[in-house]
């Protein structure tokens, strides 16, 4: 949250001065190539790497996806330079999403419900 605040001034400057197009494009291309590279890695991890348990592969795949998503969010969607307000809004959305996911799963972790749902 703090870092977002620090950057807010630079984002403000963006509005006043035209940005350096060539530099931005270089950054975006770099990010794009990283994303594509990690897509290859995801497929590779899913099909060619055996971590001994399928669930580990799934976890690794999701971690890579989360990394890719954070790149898109931070660079392409400029979250790196955004204001706290947006962070707060998204934070609540993520908390409620996580709560929903967790509580849905809890229904299965519960010993009684589990025996009921999975005979």
């Amino acid at each position: 949250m703090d870092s977002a605040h620090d950057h807010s001034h630079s984002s403000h400057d963006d509005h006043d001065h035209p940005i350096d197009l060539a530099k931005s494009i270089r950054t975006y291309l770099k990010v794009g190539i990283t994303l594509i590279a990690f897509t290859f890695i995801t497929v590779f991890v899913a099909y060619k790497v055996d971590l001994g348990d399928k669930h580990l592969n799934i976890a690794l795949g999701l971690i890579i996806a989360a990394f890719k998503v954070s790149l898109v969010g931070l660079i392409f969607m400029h979250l790196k330079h955004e204001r706290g307000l947006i962070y707060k809004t998204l934070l609540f959305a993520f908390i409620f999403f996580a709560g929903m996911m967790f509580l849905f799963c809890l229904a299965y972790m519960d010993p009684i419900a589990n025996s009921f749902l999975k005979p």
Partner: protein
Amino acid sequence: MEATHDHKHAHDSHGHDHGHDDHHDHKLPFYKKYIFSTDHKVIGMQYGLSGLLLLAFGFMLMLVMRWSIAHPGEALPGGLRWILHLFGPDFVTRWAPNGVVSGSLYNMFGAMHGTIMVFFGVVPLGFAAFVNFVTPLQVGAPDMAFPRLNMWSFWLFLLSAVLMVGSFVLPTGAAQAGWTNYSPLSATVMRNTDAHFWTGQTQWLFAMVFNISASLLGAVNVLTTVINLRAKGMTWMRLPFFTWAMFIIAFLLLLAFPPLEVAALMQLSDQVFGSSFFLPTGLWTGQTSEGILSVSGGGHPVLFQHLFWFLAHPEVYVLLLPGIAIVSEIIPCNTRKPIWGYKSMVYALLVLAFLSFIVWAHHMYLTGMGTVVATFFQFTTVMISIPSVILLTCLMISLWGGSIRFPVPMLFATAFLPMFGIGGLTGLPLAFPFIDLFLHDTYYVIAHFHYIVAPGVLFGLFAGVYHWFPKITGRMLSTPLGHLHFWGSLIGMNVLFAPMFVQGMAGFHRRWFDGGKAFENTSLQHFSFMGWEGTFLDMNVIISWGAWGLGLAQIPFIINFFWSIKGGKRVTSDNPWNATTLEWSTPTPPPHGNFLTTPVVYRGPYEYSVPGAERDFSPQWEPVTPSEEEALKTLSTH
């Protein structure tokens, strides 16, 4: 010639960027000014009128149900049969053969009463109408942040309402699986009909998808307006509590509605594409000739309930917060003193909103969920009563020591407090699974949430209508008719809902279309109350009398409402109640663009009877006077 000229003019002004100056305003053609309007006040009124109409419609459905409960097997009297004739000449013969309400009709009306009251009545009136009219005025904005989006939101809502009400005329009739539309009942109830998938159930889902989309657009608009368009000096802690509550409601709608949209889409897929999101393996139904359904199975009915209640519990707060919001404007105004504990109310609101997302499964204790999950939800549910009680207590304490005046809005606002209190406190036992197992789906639950929504929230909304009517039309609503409306409603509501607690504890189930007559000869049904002996079945008749009485009590309101638009007493000032918030600083009625000069805010929202001030109210738009500063200094040194 004249018309062409006008048209050209309108076209020209459209060519400008955002360009309607105020003097262009009256040149707008009628359809743009009143029908496809982008003015937040007109849209607010559109929402308000459609909300009131749909509330009346939902109420009429209930009257038919109450007849069936109180007089099972008897033909509807003429007045009530008239309601059925609304849906076409053949409706009575199809669904109420010989004028007697059939089980299917009862189910249909039950499902639609709930749906229409919750999603098409209370929310459009309580949230959409009031937020649209009042909030931009209260924050000092010329309009909503996205006026055209606002118009879209209303028309999407209207489309959804037309679809929903229109589903009665389908060959299958309207949805019959309860307002919660649980699977697998909703998937099987109309399965064996000749309509392949276009049934009442399907149309319910379509209507809901549109309704949800409209709510999302509205919520984004409200939030952006409050975040970005507040007037200079309108800090967060100077926001009127009404706007705070509306802001929070918009957040609830924004984040809670999407999972219901997911559930609706999944159920739509189950109906239309034959998928099995909510249909378990080997599902058997006696309603079709199929026996075991020819679907893949492998889905979970409970998933629908999770997704539904993930919305529907926050939705409960969407229903009741407008009531609290309106009442907390009216109480300080009529006690002539600041609201007690404004800040604690705001924080209570935030906590309430947060918690409302993680209590949903207390509606699902009966699904066979395990102890761990049930304990979690029991814990959060009991916790959420704390902020609710803080809100109500603050409002009660606000009455203390005030010189209270009782215009009609204040009557409704004061009655709101105990009524809402009864509704809230009777909900507490339901938070505990072991009690809920007994009371679930009985009339106790019906009484509990109707006490919150009917004499609670609806009283708040009526109060709001009486309170802001002079700002909207420039005329007051009639006080004698208002008294008739108020006392009639108060008595009607209590006769209607109080006996339901007793019936519920006696085990009366909410889905009995004969009101329990089938169990007439079972034991445990006699009671005596203050020397009066009877059966719990007899209560059905008393309750229904309450319902007819409540219906009659609305007639003075309807007369008052329409008559006063042209014939009410004219207000002599822009601020007839001597209130402090910004909406009272505008001309009456407010023009397009609202404020004559850009408003600046100098103080908090409820500065009544400020020491040192000349009058007993110090509006937000007036700077602090030296004498007030003086008085403040003296006070702080004490």
